[in-house]
C-alpha cells in the first residue's frame, strides 16, 4: 500500500538508509582521491544535501550514483591531491603472535607500500583502495567512477604492477 511513499528518496527512512549504505564509502572514496579528511567530510555533506534537494527527481535506484557523482564533481579541478595517510588496522596487529623480527619487517613493508601508494596516479589508487579496504567489487567501483569494469580491471592491474615494482625497488 505504501510502496509509493517508501519508493521516494524524500521519505526520511529511505533517505537515511541511503546515507547509511553509502556515506562511509563516499568519505573514503574522496579521501583516497585527494588525501584530505576535511574535503572528504564536506563532500559527503554536499552530496547528501543535494540528494535531499533533488529527492523528488532522483529515484532510490539512481540515488547511489547520484551522490557519488556530486561528491566527485565537487572537487573537479579544484584541489590538488595531498599525501594519503593510511593507517594499519590496529586490531590485526594485536591479534598476531609473530616474532618481533617479523613484526618489524612487516612494519617496514607497510611503510614501503604506503609510499608506493602515494606515488600512484589518483584513479589507480582510488580503485585499488576501494577494493582492498572497502571490499568493493570491480563492478561497483566501475559504477562509482562511471567507467567500464574492464577499465577498472586495467587500473587494478597497473596499480599492482607499479606497487610491486616500487617495493621491489625496480
Amino acid at each position: 500500500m505504501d510502496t509509493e511513499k517508501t519508493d521516494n528518496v524524500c521519505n526520511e527512512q529511505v533517505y537515511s538508509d541511503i546515507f547509511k549504505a553509502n556515506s562511509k564509502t563516499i568519505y573514503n572514496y574522496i579521501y583516497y582521491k585527494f588525501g584530505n579528511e576535511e574535503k572528504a567530510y564536506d563532500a559527503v555533506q554536499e552530496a547528501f544535501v543535494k540528494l535531499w534537494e533533488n529527492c523528488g527527481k532522483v529515484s532510490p535506484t539512481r540515488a547511489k550514483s547520484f551522490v557519488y557523482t556530486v561528491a566527485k564533481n565537487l572537487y573537479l579541478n579544484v584541489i590538488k591531491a595531498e599525501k594519503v595517510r593510511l593507517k594499519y588496522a590496529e586490531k590485526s596487529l594485536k591479534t598476531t603472535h609473530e616474532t618481533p623480527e617479523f613484526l618489524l619487517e612487516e612494519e617496514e613493508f607497510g611503510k614501503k607500500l604506503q609510499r608506493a601508494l602515494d606515488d600512484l596516479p589518483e584513479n589507480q589508487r582510488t580503485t585499488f583502495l576501494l577494493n582492498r579496504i572497502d571490499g568493493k567489487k570491480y563492478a561497483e567501483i566501475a559504477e562509482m567512477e562511471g567507467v567500464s569494469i574492464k577499465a577498472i580491471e586495467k587500473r587494478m592491474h597497473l596499480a599492482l604492477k607499479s606497487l610491486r615494482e616500487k617495493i621491489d625497488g625496480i
Partner: protein
Amino acid sequence: MQENYLAKWLNGELTEAELLEFKKSSEYETYLRIAETSQQLEAPIYDEEKAFEALKNRQLLEEPKVVKLQPFKSFLRVAAVAALIMIGAFFYLQTLDESISTGVAENKEIKLPDNSVVSLNADSQITYDEGNWQEERDLKLNGEAFFKVAKGERFTVHTEQGKVSVLGTQFNVKQRSKLFIVDCFEGLVQVDFDGKTKKLSKGMSLSLIDGQLLESDNLEHLKPAWLAKESSFKSVPLKYVFEEFGRQYNMEVTTKNVDTQKLFTGTFSNTHKELALKSISVPSQIKFKLEGGKVLFYGE
C-alpha cells in the same frame, strides 16, 4: 596470461594453469604481500552518526523543503504571511501623512479633500493627514504657497516660524529660512508667531524678516505675484531676493561687494532670466555675470 591478470588474480578469476604459472614467478611473493597488507590498511576514522546529525542540522538551516505531498498547505502558509504583511502595510501607510513637494523651478496645484486649493511655489512642501482632513484642517508648510480655502472648520497652516489660521479665504504664506510673509487676499486670517497673534483682513500683509515685523495694508493684487509667474518683494533684504531667484531658475547665486541686507522693492519675472537679472540689478545698482548654472552679483 590473460589481460589484466593481476586484477583477475585478486578476484580469484585465474584458471588453475594460470595460477600455477603465476605462483612460480619471482614476483608472486611480493604481490601476495601487497594483497594481504593492503587489506589491513584503514582509512581515517569516520563518524557516520555525527555526519548524519550535521547533515540534518544543515537541512534545517537551508531553505525549508516544500513538502511534495501537501503543496497547497505550504502555499496557504506563504499566502497567509503575505496577506498579513500587506494588511499591516496598508494600515501603516494609512496613518502616514500625505506629503507633496515641488522641486526648484516647479509649481504645483493641489486640491485638498475639502476642495480647498493649494498652489505650491518652487522648492516647497506641504504635509497633511488625508484621512483626518474633514475633522482637522491642519497642514504643514515649508516654503511658499497660496491657499484658496473652502468654507468650513478652522484651516491652519503650520510653519516653522508661526501658524496661520482662517475660516475660509485666500491667502499666501511664504516661509523661507528667516523670512515669513503672510498676504491676505480675501476674508480674515489669523497669524500666530512668537507668542503674538495678528489678524489680517483683505488686502493686508504681514512680514517677519530676520525678526523684524512689518505690516502693510495695501496689497496691490488679488493674487500673489508668483501665480502670474513673477516674484514680488516689498522691502525685503536682497539676500532673500537672490535666494528666490536661485529657486525660480535653479541657479547658484553668489555675490561680491554687495550689501545683501539692503532692502529691495520690486518684481522680477520667473520666466525671462535676462529680464529678471536686470530687474534685480538695475534698481540695486549692482552688476551680474552669468556663467553656466551660476550667477554672480557684484558691486564696483
